[in-house]
């Protein structure tokens, strides 16, 4: 079936089987390998992207469901010479180690900062419960999100 979607501001028309996941379109068809797959039960959040501005797990959305929608991935929020404040905060606070959960974590964190008022440590920790990180113990991630919230 034909699906047309806007990814990082660019429109793409793809022909996919109905059982194709959004993440497979992003990674396999569009080469946007910054979005990762870390589990098969919709728990880890490594595949988090923004769908019409809100964070979703792209492993739990069919490509067919996003026909006509706008998707933003980690590649679409900033570049090495023009980082998004959340990207910059992750680097400044050493909020990543192996980097595998990082894109999903950043996408969730941006949604969190944009949609939850008066963020504090507790709210950040609760707001990130859909994203697993095995490296950082979350300590510096929490710090980064609170820092970015100041500058966003």
């Amino acid at each position: 079936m034909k699906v047309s979607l806007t990814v990082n501001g660019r429109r793409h028309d793809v022909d996919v089987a109905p059982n194709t996941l959004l993440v497979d379109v992003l990674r396999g068809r569009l080469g946007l390998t910054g979005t990762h797959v870390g589990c098969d039960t919709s728990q880890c959040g490594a595949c988090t992207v923004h769908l019409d501005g809100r964070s979703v797990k792209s492993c739990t959305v069919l490509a067919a469901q996003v026909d006509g929608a706008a998707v933003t991935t980690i590649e679409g929020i900033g570049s090495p010479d023009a980082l998004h404040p959340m990207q910059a905060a992750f680097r400044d606070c050493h909020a990543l180690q192996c980097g595998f959960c990082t894109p999903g974590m950043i996408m969730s964190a941006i949604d969190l900062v944009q949609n939850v008022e008066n963020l504090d440590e507790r709210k950040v920790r609760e707001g990130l419960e859909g994203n697993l990180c095995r490296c950082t113990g979350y300590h510096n991630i929490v710090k980064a999100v609170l820092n970015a919230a100041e500058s966003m």
Partner: protein
Amino acid sequence: MSDTGIGKSVKRREDLRFITGRGRYTDDVNRPNQVYAVFLRSPYPRARIVSIDASGADEVAGVIGVFTGKDLSADKIGDLPCGWMVKSKDGSDMKIAPHPPLAVEVVNYVGEPYGIVVAESLAAARDGAEVVATEFEELTPTVSVANATAGAQLHTNVPDNVCYLWELGDADATNAAFAAAAHVTKLTFSNNRLIPNAMEPRAAVASFDAATEEFTLVTTSQNPHLERLILSAFVQLAPEHKLRVIAPDVGGGFGSKIFVYAEETAVAWAARRVGRPVKWTADRSESFLADAHGRDHLTTAELALDGDGLFQGLRVRTRANLGAYLSTFASSVPTYLYGTLLAGQYRTPAIHVEVEGVYTNTAPVDAYRGAGRPEATYVVERLVETAARELKVDPAALRRRNFIAPDQFPYQTPVALEYDTGNYEASLAAALEKSDYANFAARKAASEQRGKRRGIGFSCYIEACGLAPSQLAIQLGAGVGLYESGEVRVNPTGNVTVFTGSHSHGQGHETTFAQVVSDKLGIPFENVEVVHGDTGRVEFGLGTYGSRSIAVGGSALVKATDKIIAKGKRIAAHMMDTNADSVDFSDGEFAARDSNQKLTFGEVAFAAYVPSNYPSSEEPGLSEKAFYDPKNFTFPAGTHIAEVEIDPETGVVDVVNFVAVDDFGRVINPMIVEGQVHGGIAQGIGQALLEHGIYDDGGQLITGSYMDYCMPRADDLPSFDVDMTVTPCTHNPLGVKGCGEAGAIGAPAAIMNAVTDALGVVDLPMPATPERVWRAARG
């Protein structure tokens, strides 16, 4: 020195690609014309393979082939080896169960691969795998470690399922200490099975070039050279010079990616067999079943004390679950990485440990962050805390009374290790201060007012890192040396490419190693590039595990850098018309002591490649290699103090404060070191409160997904209060000890000491789940 030198919290250079989605992990790699693999896995914990009928799969569109263990053995693919020979106390060799990459006759754990389906698409491979009709004859499994020796025998060459009965220490002296003891503290406990769960699942993309007969295997490895060595020397996949192993960006390892597994072996073999690149990426469900697990001990431990509360003897009996087969380093983890650490930070004069390594019908168990050392610390620190409670002595005071004092180093323990240096009192004192131990009673009273129970727990851990002096390791059974290699290649324009046999999968070597080399050479940090993870680019290496990278890999780079400087001095001396002994090198400049002439590092490098004014005795070029073999282990140590508050109505344990004061010797990048500690603590708290790999009596893994295996999430953890003391390592050039595992080693005992303190119980099994805690709180 600059703000990028040794000791500075330099921002990581690898981050730019990771935060922008430009990392390149194995699953991001695609080869033209590639095909996809899916594994056939055993649904039973123990069964005979009667027949495999793949005719259904052959009918599925896109399926290229279904291959089994017989196909691999017909191609003379060898068994997966275990790289450490442990001997039983009677002198006999450990009993090694044959471990074909794909099971041929019998499967021995749920998830064990016995076949590989290769197809044009992943979906076709899955469809094909689903219609392969395998007839199994179920056999009685032996699942629990407690019943391992009484259960059905897994392997014909392993009676009672005992791989080895190993011992260390002086049994007679220890027994004598117990006979004379004024007090004996005894505990029996388990160390829970953990599943590593690096966030990137294992993956492999293999290709075979028929023209050159070369394999290229891109895979999720912590040690690509070791992978190549094993696949070549033991598995006999290809000669070493025809096999290139690349471990690109790797999304965490924690030990689980040290090992050479069935899957990448079969994928590489299949690439040659089908003549096309083959790709496999594990589902998380497969990771749960088939990554090597960690821990899983049953232990009885006793501590003998005299009338003054001085430790006189420690007696430990452990049964360690090795799983169904010996994984790559499985045998060494509950022996040489465990028994040798039982002295802890104390002067206990007599120690004896006996470890029975057993096979069960569960996934292989091998090194997981800390590997043996968390288990040892748990034994020692739970015992010491319990002894303090029994004797009604302050737990900090009892520890102090028994610490090895700073002036007693080097200190030979009764369990083989010689600690080079340490200052345990310093880290304890700092941790007590930070945790506001003095006011704990008031906080406890305040909690009780609110119907909560508060507890505090200590853990004064030690670890042996910087693995390892090769001769000693080989003498103790290691199949390889444990040195590390490094190469510093100065390019003609003066910038530097560094090649290391260490491998970063989150540790940040591209930054810290560049800090070391740029600092030593006095050149800008930006001018140093670090290359790792590719046997085609790096000469050799043993990889990253056991907190060894900076202590061993970093030292190799210092050694190579020293050679660069020495040659630079000879070149500079010629150019400045003096002799090399009269040339000083500092801050990137070669200076003649007998004149005021100076040459920059860049000028000397250029001269080496454009050798006009050049010493005739020197070869052109400026590139040096070094292998560094450590003289001893390094001994990071520290004190962790956990404070918990328990809701007795629900059994929920809230970690309200966690203090870690660690002594890692000199620190290259404090920011990165703190991050390593944070992550380790999270895994340690995970072990104590949340994580447990559970097989049911029927041998099924019932914690096989994130729905049931409880990973620490952001809201399960507090922020950590981390600090350091510095007692430099005495025997490596950087004075470093390693920091990767400390958190996971120290935290479990600290947490469980706090939980048992709060509840007023002697022991509670890990993980201290809400229901367990609720039951304990009810009394």
